[in-house]
């Protein structure tokens, strides 16, 4: 019998506490009597029935009772929100912003880093043979020792794999980068069209279906199909979603393609973070992406420009597939380099492919963006914590005012657990409303973030994913915030003795010593959290400033970059060289132009060029790669790069004159140490062993031409006419005189020079370099916003707690004043009392900062993570804010009229 009672008592715990407290005893009595009766009658069935009904009650009645209590609590919560709309709106607003910012950043970070390719069938089964994190192209030879496993494949390599490999059910290839054309729709006005060349089978491998029309099949790989498939977004944006889009045409360069289909909404293709307008058959490359034919191998150089994706046949393991792919790839390399390989060429056989999962697709920005977002996520997480600490403070202060109410309820017999539950429900209700609003905030912020990221990566695209991880995160943040700001005040409010409470409140005192202590403790936490945010903001601002004012080694003032496309002229060497010389001279003649020059790579254009070199007097090492640029006359003078010794490249350095070069300081230091490099030679060695020696005629200062970080690489510069190149663009660098506007004159000069030339881009050096600093600038701006927000929240918290403390001590202060204390004594007393709190908070915050700032190290530029100046300024700002927040209430207290204060007390 006793055991039966214990079991029933345990069952009663399934009911909400208030119900159990009220009726548990009665239910137990009743059950005991029923049980006794059942046993007296001796019918076993009766007892079993009794238990069955007890369990049934637990499943049906208990949930109803829980719901009833929750409804009561919510009603109570809403009543109390309505009674104090100011507090409720501050709480909801700060929570909505805090949770919204966290959710937006989390959602973006999660999509960038973890989300599978949208619109793709079974993305987990997708594999790729190229490097998913690398986008670009390379003409020449791949060196495994310096470049690692092969990043991109040539078209011929893809064809060999597609035709010979038996481990894949299907393979396809796609252009790694997105191309942009000035194209026409139905031969209308030119407009920008972004697209990607893909092989047949592209859509089948991804498992994509058309919204209307049809997608490419493997048929597109043969013949010269002039078809295009457009994306759903482009269809909606450009064609208003009209079904008659099928059959309409796009003109890209001289090629007209007909639209055959539209992909479904959400499908972006194989590269995450990019959304092409159009996909074109890869066969069109020579016509739409000239010059050159990238579809056929042209030894000795390989054109590597493709990602290769596929799906494994059932039962084939990844390692089996990788082994077979590499075997085919090896055979291809051997036949490419031929039987008569030089020793150097034999080294190129040491290349391999790595097979990896392609569920998340390719992306060159994934690593960078996700690391930026991680920094932001930490910052907004801290901000949310500070906001929660503030709300907890407000609740504590409010709790003081509600103390009498709570005490009355406690003395009327309400249980403490019940009251805590009610108060936490109230916090939870506030937080839930905040959380719902936060979804809207997150949506808006997501768009803002994507727009900011687009400054760094112009083709970045990511739609707001209303997915499970995002909702789980938002819910967790909401509940976490509610607990963070609601639990402590609820605990505190229900803690003390109701009798003393009632007495206190009838005397007009507000708040207890314990409450005051909790509040101060929370302020300490806020200081600890604010300092790292402020320091991080400071470091990031200095980084952005340093980057924008970095010593580039050349003069950036009024420098204009004009990229000129040579078109068919690229092949006609003599005419090309003459034209480039003439163009340079014509540009220099434009009124307002001080100087002009050109080079292959330009400045901060993203390209690079290297050659295998031997340096005179330096023992030969294999694979010594030397970065180089081919430059026009007056390169160093125009850019303002100092010539330390010798001379600049000049007009006289032509194709038939003595081969010369200019090296930079880094090159000189690396190879010549204390020897004089002037007159010595740098010899380039071709794959076929061909050697060309360039005499060093000048040494120039180091200049940054491609990256703001790291050391300037050793580099040498040869006259453009003295080193052949397949490149089809040249960048002209034009220095304008102060106050002169020369852009339109430059445009005209280029088009007038020859009709085959076209100006593909013209920008100031600042515009050109903006993407290199955009990431840091954005993060710094956000850092300042978050840092200021943290500072304001901490100031409000500090002020709230201190003025609360001063108000509580009004009578004590009044007595001191009545006894003759001077106002400034009172102020000093209060300020002194709070100094310990502030100092303790800042010391702890400083420790956290010094430890945490290391996480930022990789993003900083020209400033150390433990930079004392930044730390000092941040400390100073916080101290100042803390002082003002202490001083104001203290001053008010010192002006108290003793008589009034004592009468009130």
């Amino acid at each position, binding site marked *: 019998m006793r055991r039966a009672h214990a079991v029933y008592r345990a069952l009663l715990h399934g*009911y909400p506490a208030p*119900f159990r407290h*009220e*009726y548990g*005893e*009665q*239910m137990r*009595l*009743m*059950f005991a*009597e*029923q049980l006794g009766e059942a046993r007296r009658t001796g019918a076993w069935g009766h007892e079993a029935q009794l238990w069955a*009904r*007890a369990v*049934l*009650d*637990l499943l*049906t*009645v*208990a949930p*109803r*009772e829980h719901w009833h209590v929750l409804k009561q609590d919510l009603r109570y919560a809403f009543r109390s929100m309505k009674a104090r709309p100011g507090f409720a709106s501050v709480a909801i607003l700060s929570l909505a912003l805090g949770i919204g910012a966290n959710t937006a950043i989390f959602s973006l970070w999660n999509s960038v880093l973890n989300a599978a390719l949208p619109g793709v069938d079974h993305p987990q089964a997708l594999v790729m043979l190229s490097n998913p994190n690398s986008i670009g192209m390379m003409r020449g030879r791949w060196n495994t020792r310096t470049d690692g496993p092969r990043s991109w494949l040539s078209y011929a390599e893809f064809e060999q794999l597609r035709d010979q490999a038996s481990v894949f059910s299907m393979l396809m290839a796609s252009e790694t980068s997105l191309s942009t054309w000035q194209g026409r729709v139905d031969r209308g006005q030119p407009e920008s069209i972004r697209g990607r060349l893909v092989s047949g089978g592209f859509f089948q491998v991804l498992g994509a279906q058309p919204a209307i029309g049809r997608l490419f099949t493997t048929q597109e790989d043969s013949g010269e199909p002039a078809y295009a498939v457009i994306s759903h977004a482009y269809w909606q944006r450009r064609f208003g979603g009209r079904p008659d889009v099928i059959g309409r045409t796009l003109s890209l360069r001289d090629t007209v393609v007909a639209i055959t289909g539209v992909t479904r909404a959400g499908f972006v293709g194989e590269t995450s973070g990019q959304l092409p307008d159009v996909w074109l058959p890869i066969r069109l490359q020579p016509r739409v992406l000239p010059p050159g034919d990238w579809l056929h191998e042209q030894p000795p150089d390989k054109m590597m420009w493709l990602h290769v994706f596929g799906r494994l046949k059932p039962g084939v393991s990844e390692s089996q597939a990788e082994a077979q792919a590499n075997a085919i790839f090896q055979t291809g390399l051997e036949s490419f380099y031929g039987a008569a390989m030089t020793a150097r060429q034999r080294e190129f056989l040491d290349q391999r492919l790595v097979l990896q999962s392609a569920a998340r697709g390719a992306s060159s920005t994934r690593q960078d963006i996700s690391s930026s977002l991680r920094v932001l996520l930490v910052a907004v997480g801290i901000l949310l914590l500070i906001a929660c600490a503030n709300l907890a403070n407000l609740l504590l202060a409010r709790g003081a005012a509600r103390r009498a109410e709570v005490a009355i309820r406690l003395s009327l017999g309400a249980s403490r657990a019940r009251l805590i539950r009610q108060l936490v429900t109230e916090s939870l209700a506030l937080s839930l409303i905040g959380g719902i609003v936060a979804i809207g905030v997150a949506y808006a912020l997501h768009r803002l973030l994507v727009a900011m990221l687009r400054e760094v990566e112009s083709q970045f695209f990511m739609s707001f994913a209303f997915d499970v991880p995002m909702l789980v995160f938002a819910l967790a943040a909401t509940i976490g915030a509610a607990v963070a700001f609601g639990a402590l005040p609820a605990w505190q409010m229900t803690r003390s003795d109701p009798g003393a409470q009632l007495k206190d409140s009838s005397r007009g005192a507000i708040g207890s010593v314990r409450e005051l202590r909790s509040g101060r403790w929370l302020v300490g936490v806020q200081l600890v959290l604010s300092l790292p945010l402020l320091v991080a903001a400071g470091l990031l601002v200095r980084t952005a400033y340093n980057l924008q004012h970095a010593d580039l080694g050349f003069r950036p003032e009024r420098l204009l970059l004009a990229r000129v496309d040579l078109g068919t002229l690229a092949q006609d060497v003599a005419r090309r060289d003459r034209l480039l010389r003439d163009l340079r001279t014509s540009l220099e003649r434009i009124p307002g132009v001080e100087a002009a020059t050109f080079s292959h790579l330009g400045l901060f254009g993203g390209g690079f060029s290297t050659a295998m070199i031997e340096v005179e007097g330096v023992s030969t090492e294999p694979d010594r790669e030397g970065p180089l640029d081919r430059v026009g006359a007056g390169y160093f003078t125009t850019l303002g790069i100092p010539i330390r010794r010798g001379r600049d490249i000049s007009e006289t350095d032509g194709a038939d004159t003595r081969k010369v070069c200019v090296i930079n300081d880094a090159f000189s230091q690396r190879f010549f140490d204390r020897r004089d490099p002037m007159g010595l030679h740098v010899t380039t060695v071709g794959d076929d062993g061909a050697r060309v020696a360039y005499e060093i005629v000048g040494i120039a200062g180091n200049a940054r031409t491609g990256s703001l970080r790291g050391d300037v690489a050793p580099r040498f510069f040869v006259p453009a006419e003295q080193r052949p190149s397949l490149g089809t663009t040249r960048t002209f660098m034009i220095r304008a005189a102060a106050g002169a506007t020369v852009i339109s004159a430059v445009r005209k000069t280029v088009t007038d020079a020859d009709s085959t030339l076209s100006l593909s881009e013209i920008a100031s050096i600042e515009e050109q370099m903006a993407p290199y600093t955009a990431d840091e600038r954005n993060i710094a701006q956000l850092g300042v916003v978050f840092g200021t927000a943290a500072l304001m929240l901490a100031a409000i918290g500090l002020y709230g707690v201190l003025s609360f403390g001063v108000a509580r001590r009004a009578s004590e202060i009044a007595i001191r004043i009545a006894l003759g204390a001077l106002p400034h004594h009172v102020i000093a007393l209060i300020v002194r009392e709070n100094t310990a709190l502030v100092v303790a908070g800042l010391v702890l915050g400083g420790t956290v900062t010094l430890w945490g700032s290391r996480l930022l190290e990789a993003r900083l530029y020209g400033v150390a993570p433990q930079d004392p100046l930044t730390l000092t300024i941040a400390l100073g700002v916080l101290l100042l804010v803390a002082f003002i927040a202490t001083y104001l209430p203290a001053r008010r207290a010192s002006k108290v009229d003793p008589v009034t204060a004592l009468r009130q007390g």
Partner: protein
Amino acid sequence: MKDPKPESLLPLPPAVFHILIALADRDRHGYSIMQDVATRTGGAVKLSAGTLYSSIRRMLEQGLIEELRDSPDPSSTDERRRYYALTKFGRRVAAAEVTRLNALVQQARKTGLVPGA
């Protein structure tokens, strides 16, 4: 607080109506209510403890019944037992439910669904 209109609580859940009937002639404690209901219905309706006290909780809140401070039964041996009594409002609600059910039965008879008395 003013009582709401009795009709606003209709139709009553069966358990509530049974409890009202059980309390009509005398004040009872929970177990007694359960027994009375069982006896009157010939064992067809057996209120479980959970259903009974959940209903009592609601009826107290609605003002249909009240809890007595003292035991009405001087012979009661168990002080822990709580006794409940019908309020005036509870009586009015019960009456309103009877009227509603009556009208329903009348209608059923009129249409010939069931034979008239």
